[in-house]
């Protein structure tokens, strides 16, 4: 099909509908409102589908929980402060092994922060975020096309592993327009997931719950979750490498920061500097094996994030001392341009005598 010019938020909405999303629950917050509005326009009138503008992000995520209980593909979206409010529900979804898709178009923080793009919710997204021991799959898109593709992948992964999946975007991705192509047509029939609650007809009644008064039982639930997380790590870890074959310095960045870094690296290459890019696509599971492998030949790394240094800790853990890690961060919603990042790369390159 032909490419369509779309803003990132709307592209997520269209991709979600084509992925068979049946229910969307949201609450207004900038910079993700176009997604809520897209669903109000395009999902709410579809047969068998539901859209609710909830009274709060807390209510919205609990509506997602309910829709997932009933076997529907369900989704919510928000931006950083709103995602904090959703953490309670995400913890329950993870505990009850319920699929759901949660979009976070990050903005500057902490507190009310700013409405400009940031990446400061990396820790929150990749460490579970709410209470208890759990993980969510976290996808880090860096273009409007990827927002569309990853939204579809998110629904599939959520169902496959019975887990909440977070799309960790940001204000730039949500707002900017790019040509996008959708790989699927919307399904005509929406089927309820196996094991969902639809009334105990022709079978015994079912319970979906998290609470137990028996710590040993809960310990086993935790073990069971983490066995699945090990499987996800093995099967679903994805990353992108760009010009690393002969690289002497590798920039590690995710999401929109990786896009900016790529621009900087192209410029560096034209000046003869051997710089490459490593981009984690799944932020959880983090692609630590490819980094470890790379550290056998490449010793100098620069982590660039639009925060004060969060993913850099995962890079250090992955390299386990087998490489030197520098960090460049721009928090608060500041969006550096490729030439600023290029200056930082260039300075490090010459300081370390890589020329």
């Amino acid at each position, binding site marked *: 099909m032909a490419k369509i010019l779309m803003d990132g938020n709307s592209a997520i909405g269209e991709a979600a509908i084509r992925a068979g999303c049946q229910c969307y629950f949201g609450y207004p917050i900038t910079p993700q409102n176009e997604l809520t509005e897209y669903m109000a326009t395009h999902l709410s009138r579809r047969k068998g589908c539901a859209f*609710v503008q909830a009274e709060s992000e807390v209510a919205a995520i609990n509506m997602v*929980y*309910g829709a997932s*209980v*009933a076997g529907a593909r369900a989704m919510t979206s928000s931006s950083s402060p709103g995602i904090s409010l959703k953490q309670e529900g995400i913890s329950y979804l993870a505990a009850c092994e319920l699929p759901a898709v949660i979009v976070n178009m990050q903005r500057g923080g902490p507190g009310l922060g700013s409405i400009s793009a940031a990446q400061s919710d990396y820790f929150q997204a990749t460490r579970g975020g709410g209470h208890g021991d759990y993980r969510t799959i976290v996808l880090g898109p860096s273009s409007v096309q990827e927002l569309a593709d990853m939204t579809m992948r998110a629904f599939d992964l959520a169902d496959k592993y019975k887990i909440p999946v977070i799309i960790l975007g940001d204000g730039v991705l949500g707002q900017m327009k790019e040509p996008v192509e959708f790989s699927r047509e919307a399904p005509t029939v929406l089927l309820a997931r196996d094991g969902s*609650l*639809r009334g*105990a007809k022709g079978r015994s*009644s079912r*319970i979906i719950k998290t609470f137990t008064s028996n710590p040993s039982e809960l310990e086993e639930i935790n073990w069971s979750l983490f066995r699945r997380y090990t499987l996800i790590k093995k099967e679903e870890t994805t990353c992108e490498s760009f010009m690393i074959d002969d690289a002497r310095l590798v920039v590690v960045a995710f999401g929109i920061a990786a896009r900016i870094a790529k621009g900087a690296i192209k410029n560096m290459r034209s000046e003869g500097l051997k710089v490459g890019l490593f981009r984690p696509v799944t932020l959880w599971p983090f692609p630590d094996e490819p980094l470890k492998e790379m550290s056998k030949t490449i010793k100098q790394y620069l982590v660039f994030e639009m925060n004060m240094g969060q993913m850099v800790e995962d890079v250090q853990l992955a390299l386990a001392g087998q490489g030197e890690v520098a960090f460049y961060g721009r928090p608060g919603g500041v969006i550096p341009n490729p030439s600023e990042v290029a200056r930082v790369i260039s300075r490090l390159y010459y300081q370390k005598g890589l020329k």
Partner: protein
Amino acid sequence: MKPVYTRPKSLKRTPFHYCPGCGHSVAHRLVCEVIDEMGLQERVIGIPPPGCSVFAYNYFDVDMAESAHGRGAAVATGIKRAYPESVVFTYQGDGDLAGIGTAETMHAANRGENITTIFINNAVYGMTGGQMAPTTLRGMKTTTTPYGRDHILEGHPIKMSEILSILDGVAYIERVAVNSPTNIRKAKKAIAKAFQVQLDGRGFSMVEILSPCPTNWKMTPIKSWQWIDEEMTGIFPLGVYRDVAEKISAD
């Protein structure tokens, strides 16, 4: 011989964990009787809350999904919107519905969600050990109002049936009590009506049940029944607070 009293089909053969004299067991039984008599067991999805009735799913033989504290109405909204053929009820305590979940309850009611709420008001946080609830009476001693609830510092008992009854999305609200055979029979009728309202697609329905908590009230079960008549119904009068006859058209 014709049996005149049996265990409802939708009530599992599991001994209740509730304290002697607790109103939950009566309320559970009434809901199950109604589910049986209306033939809803295969359609019902129940939402029990954190609190004393967190184990409600061990007793109700229907599909059930636990909710986070106070979020029952939002969870029920999600289920009902995803699967409108279901008959969804929340079972919530006073801390759950009138404290931490006030927003979810108010807005689900105001949207006219086609769900039924069974609201157990025993004026106290039971499971956590008898702390002040939003519905604790003035002067009433709890573990967090050891000198009695002082309305200057701690506010007044909140009247949810009255508050919700002015919302346009609400179809039916009645406050009942389970402290005498007569009242228990009335409570069952109200529960049946609330489910019928949902089946008719008329909007949000709720039955508030004044329910004894002898353990945390530090009374005998008999005294706790009397206390509902003598003290609670003065603040929380029994009766129908809203009953909208017309059917809301679902286009």
